[in-house]
């Protein structure tokens, strides 16, 4: 496992309950949790949803380092939200600090905390999903869930293939860009100091990565055609998903907890 960098879909946890839940059910459950989080902004419901997600995370045993690496990018976003709400939310509650035209009120602190918490909940749900679901399963699940939209002539299968190829290419391109970076450095490439300079200096990297990606995509298209792929034909799938009893329990638990948290928010 590559623990130093976050590469999508390369850290799937095996041997746990959530890993084996039908990906469609899992995707729906994550959407339900995110919807519940978006619908309400009360700390009671957030405590319940956090408890659900934390028990879920603990039960798959990711190890603290993996959780930290996954959550780290979003902590900055969460802190930024907190600060923005702290400064700009209109003053309700007690006035805490007032300097240089800035007024920080207790109402602002509470709103900021709730919104920062909401963002962390969003990402915790997504991280739990990503840690336990194969990218292949994700694209399969999306394709199958969007099937009804075929009525509106939406190219669902092609969309699914698109998602799958995108997922599949992320680690490859990431690895290749590292190789190109190393190659350029060995030829005397210097990333530069300031922001503008770095941006300008990154052109040789980006153009090389872009060129190789396009080349790769061309190869992929040829390989697909060579194997008889035709976008409009019906494709069969190696894996057949079946909804089992344990999947139903999983969905019921998420539904009940999410509905309960929404209900409590309006009740309390």
């Amino acid at each position, binding site marked *: 496992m590559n623990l130093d960098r976050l590469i999508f879909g390369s850290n799937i946890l095996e*041997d*746990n309950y959530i890993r084996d839940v039908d990906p469609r059910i899992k995707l729906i459950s994550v959407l339900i949790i995110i919807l519940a989080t978006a619908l309400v902004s009360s700390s009671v419901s957030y405590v319940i949803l956090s408890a659900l997600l934390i028990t879920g995370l*603990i*039960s798959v*045993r990711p190890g603290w380092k993996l959780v930290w690496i996954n959550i780290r990018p979003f902590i900055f976003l969460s802190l930024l939200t907190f600060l923005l709400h702290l400064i700009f939310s209109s003053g309700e509650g007690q006035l805490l600090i007032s300097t240089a035209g800035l007024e920080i009120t207790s109402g602002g602190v509470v709103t900021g905390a709730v919104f920062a918490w909401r963002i962390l909940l969003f990402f915790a749900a997504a991280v739990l999903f990503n840690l336990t679901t194969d990218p292949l399963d994700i694209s399969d699940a999306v394709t199958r869930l969007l099937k009804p939209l075929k009525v509106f002539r939406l190219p669902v299968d092609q969309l699914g293939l698109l998602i799958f190829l995108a997922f599949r290419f992320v680690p490859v391109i990431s690895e290749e860009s590292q190789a190109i970076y190393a190659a350029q450095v060995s030829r005397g490439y210097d990333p530069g100091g300031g922001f503008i300079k770095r941006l300008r200096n990154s052109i040789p990297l980006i153009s090389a990565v872009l060129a190789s990606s396009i080349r790769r995509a061309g190869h992929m298209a040829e390989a697909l055609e060579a194997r008889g792929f035709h976008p409009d034909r019906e494709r069969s799938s190696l894996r057949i998903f079946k909804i089992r009893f344990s999947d139903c*329990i999983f969905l019921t*638990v998420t539904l009940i907890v999410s509905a309960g948290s929404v209900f409590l928010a309006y009740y309390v």
Partner: protein
Amino acid sequence: MQLATLADTFAKARLDAFRWRYNTAVAHKIGLALGVAILTGLLAQVRFYLPWTPVPVTGQTFAVLMAGVLLGRHWGGVSMALYAALGAFGIPWFAGWSGGLAVLAGPTGGYILGFILAALFLGHVTDKYVKSRNFLPMAALMSMATAALIFVPGLIQLAIWTSVVQGEAVSLGQLLAMGLTPFLAGAAVKVAAAASLTKVVTPKSDYSK
């Protein structure tokens, strides 16, 4: 040195025991399920008090959590179904030496039906996933099972019972005060105890082969 061999013997013994339990004939499994149901009936009578709450903690849900772990897939649920069914036929082994269909249809019947779901779920997970047999994941799974699979059906039936049989609609706050909050501390203690026991008694390798 001697301690190490002792630990090895214990690890081998528990692996053998679980392997036997997994591969044994259906008749044996029914016997085991009945045994665990009886054990649940006995533990339901054990009660002790936590210092900060007047509500007693009974051993019942502890037995439910362990039934799933000990009997494994399907059979944990079977033993709890036996417990509920035989209790409904009149064996007075529900909490407080009560029994009969009236208990199952009464205010606390939902919890007993929840036992079946919780034992099914925990049995499935422990049998299938080796990593889940450690303390933290098991504690997380057991809390999930207690909260969502025992308390939720219990509260639903409690709400239906109070509104239909007693004819008075209770508010959510009253309902939670009746059927949830008094039991939370006890449930946490039981989950911790059951997860520790699971960690000790379950083998840390796959016994299904």
